[in-house]
């Protein structure tokens, strides 16, 4: 949207296709170089990458092991590059990056159902039949203008739960893409360029012009936005920034470092998308709902998460992007201390972990703690958590780190004032 056709920044769809990998890589490299130049400037706009671990990872087998305790299970704890911080042995590469991370081990929620809890963690609000709240990425795109001429809010591997604009409007919905090993959906026409252009011309010149007759003045601008949206879509189809999705243009070694998984490729694509100006990238990793055989289930998922997450932090740091990019990693709740009769852990919103890194947050620290010997028969389970924070608090912290006024009130379409977040920022991790 910001790059005019014919400018030096622009590559036409045809030329991009014709030039295949080499040229697109050159184009991306130009962007990356430009991004790198810009990144050294303090004015570089902030962005966020959210790694959604859907199904709720176990805090015990990830960021909050209690090895050797009654409930700790079989997992061992290992030292990390952060002083006095241990995490699960299932995350050895992540352990090497913990000096970059601000770890919150005391997140609490009132939602124990996956769908409701995911809405809660994604928006910072509990589900409410009266309003659809915007996801964190939508808020960021709404509050932080500018960026790419491809969608600024992208959800990779969305699994039907991509971030929504909610009351901010569908234009803030995340653009959904799947495994970056495949092409971005709906970008390339099914017919050759000449024929496609003929179709577009016919649409605009014959049908649309007839439809406008006798209707509202400035029908397109004031009502349908059909022509405007079509032009934006065509701009995106032509954008060289689409090359950011092409992770196979990165070195084989780097790809291997992220892991040859859809999630690993998603994380690599996320880094590339942030470089070209995307404001929010969500990357989803499902499969954490281990009601049976928890130990092996968590280990399997950690084997996917660990290289991708650790390499993402490293690459962002290497490319001087971590100062302006907040990386959030977590699920909708945690899992029970008690291991059930089939070796699983059930839902536990009363104390779980979220890892944050970048955007100037304090590094290598931990906020809050869960008890190594929780009293599970107590009425108030929060007594098992030191320095508890709520999901709203996490959102307020994220927004503050991104320089968004989290307490700002927006008026919803029905005239209801709503704050962006009702939480309280966790000052101990904000520098």
């Amino acid at each position, binding site marked *: 949207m910001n790059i005019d056709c014919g400018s030096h920044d622009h590559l036409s769809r045809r030329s991009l296709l014709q030039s295949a990998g080499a040229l697109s890589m050159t184009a991306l490299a130009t962007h990356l170089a430009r991004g790198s130049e810009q990144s050294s400037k303090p004015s570089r706009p902030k962005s966020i990458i959210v790694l959604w671990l859907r199904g709720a990872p176990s805090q015990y087998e990830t960021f909050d092991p209690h090895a050797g305790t009654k409930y700790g299970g079989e997992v061992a704890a290992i030292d990390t590059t952060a002083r006095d911080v241990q995490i699960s042995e299932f995350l050895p590469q992540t352990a090497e990056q913990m000096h970059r991370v601000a770890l919150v081990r005391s997140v609490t929620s*009132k*939602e*124990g*159902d*996956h*769908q*409701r809890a995911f809405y809660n963690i994604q928006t910072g609000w509990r*589900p*409410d*039949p*009266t309003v*659809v709240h915007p996801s964190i990425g939508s808020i960021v795109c709404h509050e932080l203008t500018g960026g790419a001429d491809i*969608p600024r809010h992208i959800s990779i591997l969305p699994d*039907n739960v991509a971030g*929504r*604009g909610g009351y901010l*409007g*569908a*234009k803030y*919905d995340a*653009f*959904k893409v799947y495994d970056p090993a495949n092409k971005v*959906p*709906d*970008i*390339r*026409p*099914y017919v050759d360029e000449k*024929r496609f252009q*003929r*179709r577009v011309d*016919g*649409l605009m*010149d*014959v*049908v*649309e012009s*007839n*439809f406008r*007759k*006798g*209707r*509202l*003045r400035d*029908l*397109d601008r004031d*009502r*349908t*936005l*059909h022509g405007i*949206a*079509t032009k*934006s*879509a065509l701009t*995106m*189809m032509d954008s060289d920034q689409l090359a950011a999705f092409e992770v196979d243009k990165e070195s084989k070694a780097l790809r291997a470092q992220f892991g040859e998984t859809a999630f690993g490729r998603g994380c690599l694509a996320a880094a590339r998308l942030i470089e070209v100006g995307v404001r929010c990238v969500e990357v989803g990793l499902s499969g954490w709902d281990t009601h049976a055989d928890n130990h092996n289930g968590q280990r399997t998922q950690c084997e996917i998460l660990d290289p991708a997450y650790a390499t993402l932090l490293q690459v962002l740091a290497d490319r001087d992007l971590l100062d302006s990019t907040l990386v959030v990693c977590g699920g909708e709740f945690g899992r029970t201390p008690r291991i059930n009769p089939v070796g699983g852990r059930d*839902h536990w*919103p009363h104390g779980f972990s979220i890892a944050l890194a970048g955007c100037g947050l304090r590094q290598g620290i931990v906020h809050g703690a869960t008890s190594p010997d929780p009293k599970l028969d107590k009425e108030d389970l929060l007594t098992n958590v030191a320095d508890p924070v709520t999901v709203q608090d996490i959102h307020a912290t994220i927004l503050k780190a991104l320089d968004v006024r989290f307490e700002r009130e927006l008026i919803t379409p*029905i005239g*209801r004032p709503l704050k962006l977040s009702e939480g309280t920022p966790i000052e101990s991790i904000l520098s």
Partner: protein
Amino acid sequence: MKWYQSLARWTLLAAVGLMGVGYLANGLSGDGRSTQPPPIPKGTSETADWMEVVADVDAEFETTWTRESLATAPDADWQTVSRRVSLALIGSSISLEDMRWLESLPEGTQVDALTERLLADHRFADYWAERLGRAYVGADEGPFIVYRRRRFITWLSQQLHDRVPYSQIVRQLITAKGIWTENPQVNFLTVTLDTTEKGRVDPVRLAARTSRAFLGMRIDCLQCHDDFLGNVTLGTNSDPLEGTQRDFHHLAAFYSTAANSIQGIRDDGKTYEYQFLYEDETEEVEPIVPFLPELLTTDPAAEKLPSRQQLARWVTHRENIPAARAAVNRVWALMFGKPLSDPVDDIPLHGPFPAGLDRLAHDFAEHDWDLRRLIRIISHLQTFRLDSRCDFEVTSEHEQAWAVYPLIRLRPEQVASSIIQSCRLATLDRQSALLVQLQAFGEKNDFINRYGDTGEDEFGQDAITITQRLLAMNGKMVNERTGENPFMNASSQIAMFATDDAHAVEITYLSILNRRPTDEEAAAWIRQSEQGVSRRQFVEDLYWILINSSEFSWNH
């Protein structure tokens, strides 16, 4: 390709191959359903008693237009009104087959005939069940195990198809008991079950649902505090009162007895307790309705009933006109795409009301809350049959006053269904082969998933997004449905059997936009067809163009 798509495709190829060339040619000429005797529309003449209501409501709008010095659009042609009826009742545009059938009917009877046919069609019940279901239980899948949304929608669809009065449906929802699978209406309650709250339904969420869906009132803010912005007015016409936090929780208290058990939802008599703002302790809150309490107190039989039954009787009481207004406003919104009183679930208790609302509400309540009667009345209103374009300058004031038919974006499922239908010559309904239905179901879900479901927000008017434009331009479904496939796709069949290019253009317009091309449009396309492009490619391109048009994706 999904398994069901693959299975459906191969089975269809075999089945359609047997149909023969003659059938396809016949489909283009429209001799399919036109051989069937047209149904006799019920009550379409001036003898129908509800025509008085139509006249009254039309007169109210005339008065408004005169008072505001607004010119009105001319009447729309029957094809345009028929498309509106189809989009409203089954969420899809009209098939070529049905367009041909309508053309065979006597002039002036088409809209009524289509309305009656669709009201009797299970597609109407299915579509409206989904739409109404969103107001009752939302669009999400809700709590695991204890909530079965699909069963709930199927149950609701059967109620609608069986012509169960709307009031009875509402009563069943509020008073539901038992297991969510055996008594699907109980899902109205179990959708609020909170797994962290010891298996009880959530009276607060149910109070919010009840007030919005059945009473047309947004009193959610009263959950936490008294109304201090003048948004909620209760009391009576002569003595209006600001809503208070107590009003909300008195309504919630009706649901406090509902608990989940091994036998499903039952009433255990638990009282409702709440700690009001600025109070130090919780207190017991008795169930009291937020307005018109006399409808309960003057009904001696109601006093001894369990609280949920009391509430159900009160909501559907013949004199509870606010509840009838809420239903009318929602039906209006489903017919037009936007409510008469906007937003759909926030009608001021004491008015002022827009033209027509009260007259329609009284008629609805007096006639056993008959949804079909209400739909017939609305479809006959002048406002429903006006054109959306005029020979004077149209302004938003004209649209707001319903002096022209408003332009309303189709909802995602309407877009998906209309694409699927317009790419087939035959009507896609419950008479279609099971595998055809299965394929359409799968395609529709995939499309909506990518297009973006509006969730509970049925009547939002968001701008079209880039994702949606890309999906329509380059999406798999549009490509597959418009590409070469002589067995499945209307575009290929039209290309094969149309007598000439002009005929192909005409049929394509009828299939997709449910109208014939203007002379100007026809001339433009004929010029283009003479550029040396094959007929097949020409029709495919025209299909793509019309599906990607504003006219296709907007109700007009």
